[in-house]
């Protein structure tokens, strides 16, 4: 038996496989394929203060080994989320990592306040601040593209989330120096990091000769981006191991389709792994990845998942 449990900034999860925000809705739909309570935690679709209709369609384009999406954070708003979605998740025994966002740093705080005050707060094992979303105050630039904006948001979120419940900052890879953004987020009190969100991309419809997405740009995800996710996780955890960043858990996400894919992120330093786009290919993907990852850990002769986290840094061939 392999001990698959993992502890993320004091939050102990029975296993390290999670859904990815926006790729699993809020549980009901996947429950038809496997019990969501079997996952380490369930990560909800990013929720904002008000209901949002999202962007026009087409909202997606398939790309080689990946896809673009431009959903525009469609959702019911935090109040309906708390009284309906989160209650459903609690009733079904899920541990929940709630992904939140705001158009401004202050709005993040409002969302958190209402979340904490909601009826199902007890099932929440952590808050993921999706700072890879546009900052209305700063020309729509993504918060996580700038260390200061990242800091401001994370500080507010950390302030409002009760102590003992960890806050994760979710970073975008579309930056020159992800270690600098990680430093800003951790400096502002983030208990951990989630990496990576999608890469900005465009697909041209070669019949219509115009962008395929109605919103022009979209987020690139899927196996195509896995090497970028592994690199981001590696760089940040290498900085932690080298003492250039405070040590904190990293949740890996990006292109995980199989247990070996998950193992790549884990060996590079991720203490937990989210499965996103692969769920569209296989609705049971998150649950299957858990089974496969456990088999991989066993194949390598380990009996504790925790021993594999970051192992590639140790086994690296030094020049």
């Amino acid at each position, binding site marked *: 038996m392999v001990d698959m449990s993992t502890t993320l900034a004091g939050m102990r999860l029975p296993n390290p496989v999670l859904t990815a925000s926006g790729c699993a809705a809020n549980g009901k739909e*996947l429950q038809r394929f496997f019990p969501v309570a079997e996952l380490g935690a369930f990560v909800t679709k990013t929720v904002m203060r008000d209901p949002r209709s999202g962007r026009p369609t087409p909202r997606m384009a398939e790309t080689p080994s990946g896809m673009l999406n431009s959903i525009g954070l469609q959702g019911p708003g935090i109040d309906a989320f708390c009284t309906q979605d989160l209650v459903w998740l609690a009733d079904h025994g899920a541990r929940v990592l709630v992904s939140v966002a705001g158009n401004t740093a202050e709005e993040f705080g409002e969302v958190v306040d209402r979340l904490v005050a909601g009826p199902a707060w007890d099932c929440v094992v952590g808050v993921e601040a999706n700072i890879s979303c546009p900052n209305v105050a700063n020309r729509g630039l993504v918060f996580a593209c700038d260390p200061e904006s990242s800091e401001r948001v994370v500080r507010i979120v950390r302030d409002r989330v009760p102590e003992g419940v960890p806050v994760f900052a979710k970073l975008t890879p579309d930056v020159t120096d992800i270690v600098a953004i990680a430093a800003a987020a951790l400096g502002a009190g983030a208990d951990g990091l989630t990496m990576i969100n999608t890469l900005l991309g465009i697909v041209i419809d070669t019949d219509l000769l115009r962008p395929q997405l*109605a919103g022009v740009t979209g987020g690139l995800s899927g196996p195509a981006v896995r090497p970028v996710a592994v690199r981001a996780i590696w760089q940040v955890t290498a900085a932690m191991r080298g003492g250039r960043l405070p040590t904190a858990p990293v949740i890996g996400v990006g292109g995980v389709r199989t247990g070996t894919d998950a193992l790549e992120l884990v060996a590079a330093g991720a203490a937990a792994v989210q499965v996103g786009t692969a769920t569209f290919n296989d609705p049971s993907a998150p649950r299957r990845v858990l089974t496969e990852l456990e088999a991989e850990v066993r194949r390598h002769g380990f009996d504790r998942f925790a021993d594999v986290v970051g192992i590639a840094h140790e086994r690296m061939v030094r020049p």
Partner: protein
Amino acid sequence: MSTGVVQVAGELIANRRVGAYHHLTLVAPGVAELADPGQFVALAVGGPTSATLLRRCFSIHKVKPSGTYGGTVDIVVAAHGPGTRWLAALRPHDPVDVVGPLGRPFPLPAEPVACVLVGGGYGSAPLFWLAESLRERGCHVEMVLGAASEDRLFGVVEARRSADAVHVTTDDGSAGRRGWVSDVLGEVVDRTEAAVVYACGPMAMLRSVTEVAGRHGAVAQVAVEESMACGIGVCMTCVMPVTGSDGATRMVRSCVEGPVFRGDRVRWDAISGGVTRVPEDAVGAPRAGGH
């Protein structure tokens, strides 16, 4: 969410060319037992080394809950992109992963009213099965099948078995009457005093079917075909502006709340030129200066 769904490792048992289409029969135990007309299946494409990650969705043409091979599902595929071409090239015994049945089926009338079923191109695929269900309930059923040209009509012969009368139109006049399905629909609704028009086909056709049905006193039930990344309700790519019973318009997922919608509930005004806008009065629509 109450409807059952399964994910099974299916197997192709037949692949027949029919006009411009490929008619595929898949063994997919469990799907047939749960399915109703109007639902669809989502198939993984490209095999183990595939770069095409997203499933392809197809209306269920017919099902056989059990047989020599276990339950089977039939679909009709128009091959144009990489996924549909891959499916069209499959040979018997090739494996195909199937998720289904998905979506909401065509609602059946409580009373034995007359119904008109309208299919554009391969959009007719789910209608024969629907026709049989309707006739079992005592409904009078007529079908209107239209396409660009004769080779793009699907199931005219089958239609003659499943329906009380069949009307055919083609854009180029190569079969039936030259013109569009909407050109003949009004007279059929009037003559049969149809209460419901069921339709499946391209967006522009569904819109005019809805208008014609409305003008002639029938309710339209249309099966839409939005671009879908997941088919199971988790990605939010397949949304359409639809007005609910409360009068509010929402961007709803056509894979779980559709693909069948009441035609007069669809906000056709927001749909044009291959883009669907968010109506300004939709719940959570961007406000001036806002998101």
